[in-house]
């Protein structure tokens, strides 16, 4: 299946694009998806952490990704100041 991934903040800069297409055998869970992604973009390992959202909801590691899902990489949000 073809996955479309939305990228924000530092993740967008690492990948160099705000949208990414990945060809992926199904089924894939969030954990495996992140491994594939980090192999392809090793700089993602430099992030302190990042989450994955499926259809605009934070996803757990064992959640399955299905064709047509809106996938987004969520690097650490705005954080500690103020």
């Amino acid at each position, binding site marked *: 299946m073809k996955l479309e991934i939305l990228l924000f903040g530092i993740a967008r800069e690492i990948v160099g694009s705000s949208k990414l297409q990945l060809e992926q055998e199904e089924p894939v869970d969030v954990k495996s998806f992140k491994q594939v992604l980090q192999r392809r973009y090793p700089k993602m390992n430099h992030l302190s952490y990042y989450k994955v*959202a499926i259809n605009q909801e934070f996803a757990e590691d064992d959640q399955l990704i299905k064709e047509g899902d809106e996938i987004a990489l*969520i690097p650490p*949000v705005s*954080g500690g100041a103020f």
Partner: protein
Amino acid sequence: MSLIKITDATLNANEIIAQVLRDDLGGIDIFIGTVRNQTKGKKVVRLEYEAYRPMALSEMNKIANQVREKWPQSSIAIHHRIGILNTGEAVVVIAVATPHRQQAFEACKYAIDTLKETVPIWKKEVFDDGEVWVAAHP
């Protein structure tokens, strides 16, 4: 005007306060986050905020619903600005009105603490000699 809003425009606290005002509520607590001019001693020139807009709105709505559930009768508005901001400008305004003041403080604090954990909005600090996405690195 919507109670929950992400906007490129300057935030106006008075307008946001007017949204939560009800004359059965006696206390309003408002939190305003502003752009500081330095981080760890380094001078910040400006900040750039970027949102995953539909999800950010959805997470902001969740916070508002949680507040209304935890503090019955409360009234809440959350406005977040994105785009390019200069130091001193307001990034986020949260206003919570409750019957009595202690609840307003608690609820407003809960809202900003949760917002900073769950709402997908990112901040890039721009210095004279470079820039950094805040909290991205260990």
